[in-house]
């Protein structure tokens, strides 16, 4: 259960970016999680929501895009999706194909909007 730590790291990045944009407030943070990243999306979503509750970031939504595992065949040069761990090239049967995508753990972007300070 390291999803709390990962959610913390996402929030650190959101806070750092928010500081760069005075007058804007973050509404959504979009991330990519590869099938091989070893991160459970539900646990991450739960951790994120628990951490933002009651903080200035409690309106920020976490959007998780799951990225499939893609392999490249060195012989045919075709890229294909690995389903059920079958990483053989679907065209020529080559066993030793190379993973080119699927272990991402990245923040892609933030969505921010103008922030109207409430008068006291």
């Amino acid at each position: 259960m390291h999803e709390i730590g990962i959610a913390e790291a996402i929030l650190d990045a959101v806070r750092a970016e928010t500081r760069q944009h005075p007058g804007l407030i973050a509404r959504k943070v979009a991330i990519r999680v590869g099938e091989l990243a070893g991160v459970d999306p539900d646990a991450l979503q739960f951790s994120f929501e628990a951490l933002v509750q009651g903080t200035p970031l409690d309106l920020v939504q976490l959007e998780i895009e799951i990225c499939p595992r893609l392999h490249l065949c060195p012989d045919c040069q075709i890229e294909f999706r690995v389903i059920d761990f079958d990483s053989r090239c679907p065209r020529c049967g080559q066993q030793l194909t190379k993973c080119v995508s699927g272990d991402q753990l990245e923040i892609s972007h933030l969505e921010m909007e103008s922030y109207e300070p409430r008068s006291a």
Partner: protein
Amino acid sequence: MNHVALEKKILSENDRIATTLRDRFAEHGTLCLNLISSPGSGKTTLLERTLQSFSPDRHVAVLAGDIQTENDANRLKRFGFPVKQITTGGTCHLDARMIERHLADWPLDQIDLLFIENVGNLVCPASYDLGEAAKIVLLSVTEGEDKPLKYPSVFFKSELVIITKTDLLPYVPFDQQAAEENIRRVHPGVEILPLSCSTGAGVDRWLHWLEKQAVKTEPLVSK
């Protein structure tokens, strides 16, 4: 709504520290290996067997991670090499900052081989780069041959898979061939090394693997 592209790794702070560690290891010619497995797969026993085989003038050190207790460090200190315990106090994995902190007072130019024994866990340690040259995952024959499919991340990211406790094969329903097929489904081409620390079978191949890696790790500066 403003769209602000970030395009950065979530664990970029950990990765930054890991990169500085990797540079330091390269500079001093230190081969750093990160051992990962479930609790009880035999990481400490493998290290005991390994340290026992080294001559006392070998420049080897161990960082042993656990949630609680100094037990592993105490077991490993008996061999006379520098050993430090990292107790995480609840965290289920080691991160690069813990390694940096615990290496602070160790002269790396006097360490040729550094073993990091991660916290027993097949999930979380896979996400954290510690600056190691290679991750090594251990799978014991009492765990079941489907573990690589259940925990693909760590098997995918490891350079070597060690199947431990092979002396127990006659007593457990472990299908070694199926295990190796599962490992290779997750990580095509990965090296697999079955061994038993009790009988010593296969330990020579492990020591040979270590020597092969050590040769690759020439220091950038002369010692």
